């Protein structure tokens, strides 16, 4: 997995609540057996018209935001299905940090498995960063995972929370299956005990 430490990038504003995983990556793109190549279909139904032409008004189609690395969005981002195609598409587009007031649980966890940092901030702080993002390509937002800070283009600093284990894995690009396999003895012991206490499982 790609490491995430620091990021200074353009932030795209998407001021909508309840952005669901069907919006992020519609189902017709779930028929892939690969993880890569989904960036072109990120937000597909908002981004292209019926003839596959770009819809100019959509934020990621605007010249200022075509290279956005950060997405600022509304409450309950990523609600809906468990499809990891959503973070795959986001990462494949080049966005590695999302800032929103809250996230749906499964989406939030999926981000960390794909080198994406989802940051939850209070609504009023997201509002400040949303305004900042609306300034376009000249407004770069800085994210420092080590220090757990976000710095707006005006130099305003916000701190954020992140689970220490998730932070550790993201900063070091760790494969958590490998980490878990180091604890195989605990899993073996659990299985042996369960075979006696719950043999029907």
């Amino acid at each position, binding site marked *: 997995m790609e490491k995430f430490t620091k990021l200074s990038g353009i932030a795209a504003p998407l001021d909508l609540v309840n952005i669901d995983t069907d919006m992020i990556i519609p189902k017709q793109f779930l028929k892939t057996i690969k993880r890569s190549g989904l960036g072109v279909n990120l937000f597909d139904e908002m981004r292209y018209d019926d003839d596959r032409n770009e819809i100019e008004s959509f934020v990621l189609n605007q010249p200022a935001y075509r290279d956005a690395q950060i997405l600022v969005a509304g409450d309950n981002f990523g609600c809906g299905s468990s499809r990891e195609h959503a973070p795959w598409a986001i990462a494949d587009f080049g966005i590695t940090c999302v800032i929103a007031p809250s996230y749906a649980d499964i989406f939030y966890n999926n981000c960390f498995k794909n080198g994406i940092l989802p940051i939850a901030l209070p609504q009023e702080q997201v509002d400040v960063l949303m305004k900042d993002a609306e300034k376009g390509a000249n407004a770069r937002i800085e994210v420092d995972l080590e220090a757990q800070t976000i710095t707006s283009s005006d130099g305003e600093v916000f701190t954020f929370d992140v689970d220490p284990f998730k932070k550790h894995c993201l900063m070091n690009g760790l494969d958590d299956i490998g980490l878990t396999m180091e604890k195989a003895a*605990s899993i073996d012991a659990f299985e042996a005990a369960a075979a006696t206490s719950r043999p029907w499982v």
Partner: protein
Amino acid sequence: MSPKTLYDKIWDAHVAHEAEDGTCLLYIDRHLVHEVTSPQAFEGLRMTGRTVRAPEKTIAVPDHNVPTTLDRANAATMTEDSRIQVEALDTNAKEFGLHYYPVSDVRQGVVHIVGPEQGWTLPGMTVVCGDSHTATHGAFGSLAHGIGTSEVEHVLATQTLIQQKSKNMKVEITGKLSPGVTAKDVTMAVIGLTGTAGGTGYVIEYCGQVIRDMSMEGRMTVCNMAIEGGARAGLIAPDQTTYDYCMGRPHAPKGAEWEAALTYWKTLFTDEDAHFDKVLTIKGEDIAPLVTWGTSPEDVLPITDVVPDPASFKGGKVGAAQRSIEYMGLKAGQKLSDIEIDTVFIGSCTNGRIEDFRAAAAVLKGKKIKDGMRAMVVPGSGLVRAQAEEEGIAQIFIDAGFEWRLAGCSMCLAMNPDQLKPGERCAATSNRNFEGRQGRGGRTHLMSPAMAAAAAITGRLTDVRDLM
């Protein structure tokens, strides 16, 4: 010992390792797998030389892509990419030695219907699947939730998940339901009150007289949509209804093991005075037959109501409601019962079980669907289909003008050929009314099977109580 909730008890019984920071390895008893969210996980195993740790606890079934038309044995009914995904599951299931129900097997169906039906899902278990509606299995008092593909790979390789514990929420439904009100209305009513993020960070335990009086089918409908309220999982304590459902299922314990299991299952309840971080109480009598008007499952109103004015909401919801109403082609103040539909979909992991079909058939018996209506019933499994045929329910649907289909997810998420065209409007018994969910530009109104049947007859959203 301090009193525990049902969730606390199941959690504690499955912690295989706990790190100093509280991060746990939770042991997984059952891993359900379907074709859409698993190919990359199996590929990951191959690339790293890993294998499936517990194939005997891993159950695979194709459901999302499969056509549900009667000619589906003909490969031409599937698109190339869908066929590749299903073939990949065939190959992976064989290569890694999983329990497998291929498309040709009468037991095939929607993964969340097949699991309970075959007795894989039992009280007190941990159940995961790369699908958010895994919450369904919580109806048995098992801790069940959806996971992403990386986590699917993690469970395949280690039979565990890295987890942090959620908070406890209690949702109590007291009293009794009125005629025409079903489990679907109960679960929609809860989401209407909590919102789609109200359950985020929680595991919900549903309890109260209404839940106790519900069949297993109804309880599965309730837990299925826990995820639509944002909760990690929904739970219902097992009782005699649960035991009766499980007994004799192919993979349920038998003989002395059954007795031992039963003894254990009877310890699975929330202790008196156990702490809940959040409590919601709803009177069963206050719940009316509901429909959604917008593009979020929280956009719920009684069928007797009108399309709301976006200005009546607060914060970001004002804009969201405006966008929803525009997408749905509605007007604020319009009566919900005046909304005309052209499609009816009865099925899905929410409402594709025998009880759902009985409820719809009771409304449809001796009646015809409106001229020009496209209406389909998609059983949750081949066994549900067979039972409905045996009970004469299938014939009621066919006589009314419904298409009687084979099992699969079908128009719930429109990954197979069943899709809405732009502007088409569907009365659906599924779980999500998101923009484009049932096809680009398609408009979805969620409701119970009985309400969907009523809409099929009149051609508009209809209060089923008027037809009873």
